[in-house]
């Protein structure tokens, strides 16, 4: 049985995600929303990840910028950490998330959403290779 996949227009998708972000769907460990409420193109988003317990990220709130380009959701969004973080796949000097190192960004599907990206990043924080990485002092941000 082929399941026909309807290709949802970009803006519809993003509006849905916007609503979901405002309603706080999910477990409350990630949050996302438009960076600028007047942004009619729904391109620039801010995200927030609460560092998972039992890791070096614990007790911290990480702020991110997510940019959904014109080809979203067919193309993965670009993600960048604003709060300084030490994590595999995140550029140390400017916080950009390397799309090739983060599995879901590398193998993006158009059913993925911003929420999923944030949750995945959070999950990666709990991985063995990341959870013990020494972190910069809390509250620092990248300068760009």
């Amino acid at each position, binding site marked *: 049985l082929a399941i026909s996949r309807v290709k949802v227009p970009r803006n519809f998708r993003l509006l849905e995600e*916007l609503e979901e*972000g*405002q*309603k*706080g*769907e999910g*477990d*409350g*460990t990630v*949050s*996302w*929303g*438009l*960076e600028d*409420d007047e942004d009619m193109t729904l391109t620039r*988003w*801010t*995200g*927030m990840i*609460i*560092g*998972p*317990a*039992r*890791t*070096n*990220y*614990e*007790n*911290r*709130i990480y*702020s*991110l910028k997510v940019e959904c380009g014109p080809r979203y959701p067919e193309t993965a969004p670009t993600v960048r950490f604003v709060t300084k973080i030490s994590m595999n796949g995140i550029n140390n000097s400017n916080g950009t998330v390397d799309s090739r190192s983060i599995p879901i960004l590398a193998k993006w599907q158009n059913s993925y959403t911003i929420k999923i990206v944030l949750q995945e990043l959070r999950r990666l924080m709990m991985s*063995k290779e990341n*959870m*013990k990485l*020494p*972190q910069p*002092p*809390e509250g620092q941000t990248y300068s760009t």
Partner: protein
Amino acid sequence: MADQGAADPGNNNNNKPEASEGTIIKVTVKTPKDKEEIAIAEDASVTQFKEEISRRFKAKQDQLVLIFAGKILKDGDSLSQHGIKDGLTVHLVIKTAHKAADGGSTSASSSTSTQAGSTSTSNPGTNPSTTTGSTGSAPPPTQTPNILTGFGDLGGLAGLGMGSANFMELQQQMQRQLMSNPEMLSQIMENPLVQNMMSNPDLMRQMIMANPQMQQLMERNPEISHMLNNPELMRQTMELARNPAMMQEMMRNQDRALSNLESIPGGYNALRRMYTDIQEPMFSAAREQVSVRNTSLHSYSESGAQPSRTENREPLPNPWGPPTSSNPSESGGGSTGSSSTTAGTTPSVSNPLGINPGSLGNGMFNSPGMQSLLQQISENPQLMQNMLSAPYMRSMMQSLAQNPELASQVLMNNPLFAGNQQLQEQFRAQLPIFLQQMQNPEALSVMTNPRAMQALMQIQQGLQTLQTEAPGLMPSLMPGGIPGIPTGGAMPTENPASSPSSAGTNIAQQQLMHQMLQMFAGGGGGGGSTQTPEVRFQSQLDQLNAMGFINREANLQALIATGGDINAAIERLLGSQPS
């Protein structure tokens, strides 16, 4: 409940802080654990919203971090500015000075957090045998002194590294909070007792070796005993424990070194091996109580050079998790839930002895949560027994007794007393008595008697109730003793409760407690002069009986709790009756 944003002046949600101008909206506030719906004015500011939230979630406003749509809400902003409307959800993070994701400490997770994993915060290391417990969350200065504190914080001493399941969680919490509060740590470190202990490697070694688990371990792994016997290493460790910053540094270095190690072919396996061979038994030892051991031991055996940290790759078992098998000889100390013990500092590389400075000094000083301690003690009489029989406990008490200076210093540093000059004075005066008490086997046996402890606790509670309900009563209770409570045994001459000071019932209550303590001491020391509560309250019991309270047990309890005050006892009885 009303689910529309229209103004609802008849709003029965009486939590609304400000009279609204404009419509009230219902916003869901969600933490990873919890969810509440809060009604707030549409045009309210974030600050107002936080006020409401702090009430509802019982957290301080400055601990709250609100997130909406990926942005942190700053106090100066308004809800409408962020587009927060009726029916939307705002995420809340309550920072308990240490944890994000909700004020609740995930006690379950516990241990792991104390490992290297725990961010920054110097992890003072595991709970050394001496742990006297760490201060609980920022000891609330308002806590009325608990009777036990009279016993020279004997309860605190119980923190000597013994744990039973119930206390684990509390300890964990305390540990975490302690770790997150570097000030507290430095306070602790400054404590002369702590410093004394830490500068005495022999003492430390003794304590460590006193742990049967350790002994077992040592048999299996002679290297461990080598390590213990290496004064250099011990000293280094203690230095480290003293200096949180240094420790942190070292930990970081170690972690890095370890990761390097890992990349060596075969290195990972070696690490693993080390972990399973050495660390596991150690951690089971730690689990039982005073943890001490530390990976550095492994590393020591491994590298032979200087303690490299063997970083364990897996989450360390929870040293304070529910003990797989309670270790009777040791569990005693553990109790001090509240007061004590510090947190398990899981042995970390840089801290071979897993010394937790927090636990060292503080258990003694930690009063908050004494109540729960008492509860737990009464639930588990074994604990007290064990605690008291712990050898080092004895020696510590002895040294305290011999050195009243030290003891007084110790007590003075108790944050509980810090803010209260009067109390300090009183305790200072009481000190010699307390010390005697501690030596007094009678007193000790009372402590091991769960019912006695319970009674004490009830008295404490009763006192508190009294204080709140009848503040005027306290002063009148002061001089000459409390009705119904026998002045069994000579009241020591220095009776601070001479005149009810108008300084407030707080002082009065403290004085009352002193009196009671003295009486207790007198009673305990005097041996035979205590009358049973029944005898004491005979007339009151009769009266209660006549009034129709036929449950003698309950009456007795109530009377004990209220110190013989019939009216208060009746209230208690009525309050506790099922309705």
